């Protein structure tokens, strides 16, 4: 269920602009890895290269290697569609399909591969909603539109939708930045629970959040304005926040810039 990701020498471009340069790292299974760093340093871009969502943007491209348990995601015989199936994603703004009910939202990914019986779908929907800590709140209104839920509930619905297809890895792009503190807490609890089964990668602006939920942290930064973003340092979260090896990391964590 849970796989390791190894990145080596990865560059990402928007047209001719290089957004990130020479990123190499290993992301361990059954753990939460957090990416922190100032705005525009390429954290989200890098996250999107991990499930080939980066190339959805016209003109965007990637050079380098991303291995999922040894298999290169960017090798020529791998389709982006199958990569995204294996590596799920949760976005900054909750984005349930507005025309679908809660049930249909969770089942949306399942339907793609077809031939899933009604009872099987029911089971997976329930399991996923429970997995996303949402089942008890909405179990009697599964046929209501997903857009009618609160922001935090919508985001958990999106998590349920992502885990319903049983991915190997779950990528989360600032999943709490549009949410209130209580909803944020619910999502953070959920991440701690989900890491038993999934490899989780989260981009966050919130240092406390990274410290609370993650096992390992990577700090991204720009060498200068207009330069590509790079990984400055990556380490166990506890060490990173108490005893960073780089001056820039310390400055950022202690709030001296960014």
């Amino acid at each position: 269920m849970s796989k390791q990701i190894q990145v080596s020498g990865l560059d990402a471009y928007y047209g001719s602009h290089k957004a990130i340069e020479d990123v190499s790292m290993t992301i361990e299974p059954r753990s939460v890895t957090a990416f922190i760093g100032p705005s525009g340093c390429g954290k989200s871009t890098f996250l999107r290269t991990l499930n080939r969502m980066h190339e959805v943007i016209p003109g965007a491209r990637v050079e380098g290697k991303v291995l999922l348990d040894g298999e290169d995601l960017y090798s020529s015989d791998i389709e982006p569609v199958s990569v995204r199936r294996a590596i799920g994603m949760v976005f900054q703004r909750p984005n349930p399909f507005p025309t679908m009910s809660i049930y249909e939202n969770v089942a949306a990914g399942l339907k793609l591969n077809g031939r899933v019986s009604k009872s099987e779908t029911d089971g997976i929907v329930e399991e996923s909603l429970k997995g996303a800590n949402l089942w008890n709140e909405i179990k009697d209104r599964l046929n209501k539109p997903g857009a009618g839920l609160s922001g935090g509930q919508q985001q958990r619905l999106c998590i349920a939708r992502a885990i319903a297809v049983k991915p190997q890895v779950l990528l989360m792009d600032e999943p709490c930045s549009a949410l209130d503190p209580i909803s944020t807490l619910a999502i953070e609890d959920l991440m701690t629970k989900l890491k038993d089964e999934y490899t989780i990668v989260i981009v966050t602006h919130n240092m406390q959040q990274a410290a609370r939920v993650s096992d390992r942290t990577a700090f991204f930064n720009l060498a200068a304005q207009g330069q590509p973003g790079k990984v400055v340092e990556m380490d166990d979260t506890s060490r990173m926040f108490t005893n960073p090896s780089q001056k820039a990391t310390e400055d950022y964590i202690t709030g001296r810039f960014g």
Partner: protein
Amino acid sequence: MTTPVRTRGGGPATRRAASRRSSGEGPFRFASTGAGVVLLGVMAAIAVFLISEAIPALQANKGNFFTELIWEPNGSQVFGIAALAFGTVLSSALALVIATPIAVGVALFISHYAPRRLAGPLGYLVDLLAAVPSVIYGLWGLVFLVPFLKTPSVWLNEHLGWFPLFGGEGVIGGKTMLAGAIVLAIMILPIIAAISREVFLQAPKINEEAALALGATRWEMIRMAVLPFGRPGVISAAMLGLGRAMGETIAVALIFPATFDLSFQILTPHANSIAANIANGFGEATPIGRGALIASGLVLFVITLLVNMGARMVIARRKEYARAAA
């Protein structure tokens, strides 16, 4: 900064007081409001004068205006709208059936398939279709399309003649309902494509990304995130297209053979429409004949008005929905 704003025209009340004193405000406001009222007046006048000028002819009618097939207001003074209205509805419906799938495909092509740098110019190319005057489509239909359709018409009649639309004796192509419907389809395609393209482009990017991140192919993404969002827009676009097809005159006036019967056989030379009949019959009409044509125009006006109002209501509902979803 705030002081001059307050004293010299910031607050609505003071601004109104100040403007009442200035000489141009009243007349200007009156002119612009008046222009809007003139527009409403024109719409009302269309209804009033079509009705008033149709009444004498309708009183002279020796047949039933709504059920009679024959159109002889100049001679026997027996005339009815039935055959013409039937032809109008059938030809427009056919045009819609042909144009809508293609227009939706074109819209998707521009919004989601074409390379981004080409999408603009290619979209403009489709818009150009709408710029070609209708009389030129008529000429094209008459000189090119009608002869061109001969072989396919004969083939359809031979092999699929059991299907009522393709049935009939002595199919040799020529000026048929099918030829007119195809020309109408080409003429309404740009408007359906343009509106559909706009609503497809408005489909929320975050939902498209959600679908892709679930491992959807491009088509699956479109089905999950684009088409459901765009459906009301496409429906109202199709209805606007239908309204256009019904009112389209000159192209079909050149192509339809001007018969007065009810025939579903679209490959045989039986076709007419209210608008084509007005264009073809106006020159030789007696005063009663002209009144009869005005009466038929009134029917066309009412039908297109209903179709257009329906389309606007669908759009209006979509706007509310989009606002609620945002």
